[in-house]
């Protein structure tokens, strides 16, 4: 039926119909699961709504509440930005070093690649629970080992000063994806350029600076931008680490102060969850969502401008 209908139409119209047909799953998905909720989030950010009574219009009250009065907004924003800057920087440097190392390896390359890549696959919840155990002060094997060589280990996830660095450590364990991306980029650098540089008497650093670096900058840029966007969404690891390290019994429904210890692991996405689904302050939660959205959008725009290869090969 559809076939005979499309045959009877003129050529360009038929092509347009065909394109629409192929794109239709995404067109529906985009409007229903992206455009609609985005507009609704803006709408709710101007409403007072506790998810029981009808929403009422309150103008900018949610916005001023979040920015002026909400006690946890400051710490959450600070933690999120701290993680974005430190975690992304450390991950890119470490991922690149690991990529450089793995491309130098001749013997047992398969073993090393697997060993470095495997932790990336560990489900975040499982990896976090495992790390809270490993780094547990007093009962964990890591501090036990540090003690054996005469170092008294830090309190890791139980100290507000070391909780975020511990999360960075956890994220370094899952560096496998970045390593593979950098590895592929490094293998793409033309070999002749290294040989030419060597003939010119360039040392290891000069070869990196003048041959390797210029050809991998787009990938470094890509890693930075996607890293920033991912860290903006940082949620599961921070939440689970805080909950498990605090050691309290947390059944569903029980409300604990998020971000243990002392809000040091509270991120903006966690605040969205606790405002929307524990305090039922839909308006404030939507304002927080939009703050997150604004930052993510700014980064995306940067990505498009820098043309880090995402839209290349367009034609």
């Amino acid at each position, binding site marked *: 039926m559809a*076939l005979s209908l499309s045959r009877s139409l003129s050529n360009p119209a038929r092509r*347009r119909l065909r*394109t629409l047909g*192929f*794109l239709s*799953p*995404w067109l529906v*998905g985009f409007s*229903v699961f*992206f455009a*609609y*909720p*985005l507009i*609704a*989030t803006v709408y709710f950010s101007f409403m007072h709504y506790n*998810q029981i009574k009808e929403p009422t219009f309150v103008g900018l009250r949610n916005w001023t509440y979040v920015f002026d009065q909400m006690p946890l907004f400051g710490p959450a924003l600070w933690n999120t930005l701290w993680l974005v800057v430190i975690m992304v920087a450390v991950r890119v440097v470490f991922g690149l070093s690991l990529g450089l*190392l793995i491309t130098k390896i001749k*013997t047992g390359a398969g073993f*090393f690649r697997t060993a*470095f890549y*495997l*932790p990336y*696959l*560990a*489900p975040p*919840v*499982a*990896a976090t*629970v*495992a790390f809270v155990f490993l780094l*547990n002060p007093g*009962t964990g*094997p890591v501090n036990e*080992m540090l003690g054996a060589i005469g170092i008294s280990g830090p309190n890791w996830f139980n100290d507000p000063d070391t909780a975020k660095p511990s999360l960075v450590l956890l994220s370094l364990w899952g560096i496998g994806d970045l390593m*593979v*991306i950098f590895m*592929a*980029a490094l293998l793409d650098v*033309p070999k*002749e*350029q290294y*040989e*030419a540089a060597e*003939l010119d008497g360039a040392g290891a650093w000069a070869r990196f600076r*003048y041959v390797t670096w210029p050809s991998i900058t787009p*990938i470094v840029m890509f890693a930075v931008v996607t890293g920033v966007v991912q860290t903006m969404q940082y*949620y*599961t690891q921070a939440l689970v680490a805080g*909950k*498990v390290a605090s050691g309290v*019994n*947390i059944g569903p429904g029980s409300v604990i102060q998020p971000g243990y210890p002392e809000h040091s692991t509270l991120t903006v996405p966690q605040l969205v*969850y606790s405002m*929307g*689904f524990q305090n039922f302050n*839909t308006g404030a939660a939507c304002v927080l969502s939009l703050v997150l959205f604004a930052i*993510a959008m700014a*980064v995306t725009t940067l990505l498009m401008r820098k043309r880090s*290869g995402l839209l290349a*090969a367009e034609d």
Partner: protein
Amino acid sequence: MTTTTLRAPAAPERTAPLRGPAAARARRKRILHWIAVHSVALAVALLFVLPFVFVFLTSVMSDSQAMSGELWPDSWNWSNYKTVFDTPGFLEWWRNSLLYAGLGTLLTVCSAIPVAYALAKFRFRGRRTAMLLVISTMMLPPQVIVIPMYLVWAQQLHLSGTLWPLIIPMAFGDAYSIFLLRQFLLTIPKEYIESAKVDGCGEFRTLVKIVVPMAKPGIAAIALFQFFYCWNDYFGPQIYAAQNPGAWTLSYGLESFKSAHSVNWNLTMAATLLVMAPVILVFFFAQKAFVEGVTLTGVKG
């Protein structure tokens, strides 16, 4: 490009037989370099593997030893694994995880293929805009849209307490999978598609008979990524399934498992390993598709 590409002459010293003290020095330097690189790599690899080893060793310790910080188990309590499986709900979480990940993957793959194909191979007005929108969706933190979505699923469709609000949307194209598959499809030469058309294949038949078989590695990559995304998802089940333990997945249940067995690190580590196991098993069977998928996101464009 800042460096001029010089044609390097074939390095003669590599092929010529090595002789004399200078050659011996060069060889010694090469060997030292080999040892240095491999020992650094070995040390780092050890650090990456040790957490798995400790988790495993702790998982077979006795209750009291698991609290001691000791590294080697006094006795091998394999029964810890049986205790974990006997914990009420644990098998249900497995079933739910498999349902979410299995159905989610199937729906994602089926919906991503035609969309990615159209974006890669059709020429139409607004395809650049469409690509930009796909990428923006990819970049959007899930927390931004979760509240209105939750209200629709819970208040209008009465589906909270189930995993359906997470599974159904996957029938409508996941941006990340569309993007990844489109990048892969760009690498398929036009000629194959054109010759299929000359042979009288319609657009749909060309896709099914020519493009899909050629795109198998790309499809495998998006299927694997989606499977692991669903398997690992914590935020989604927390939003929709939290009130109903019967709908929890392994990733969501694990943390509550820890709080229910608050002192039993051995049982918790056994459960942790069981949550990791399927992912690691699948990886060993599908290493190539994985690495290809990761590289595709970052490098080729």
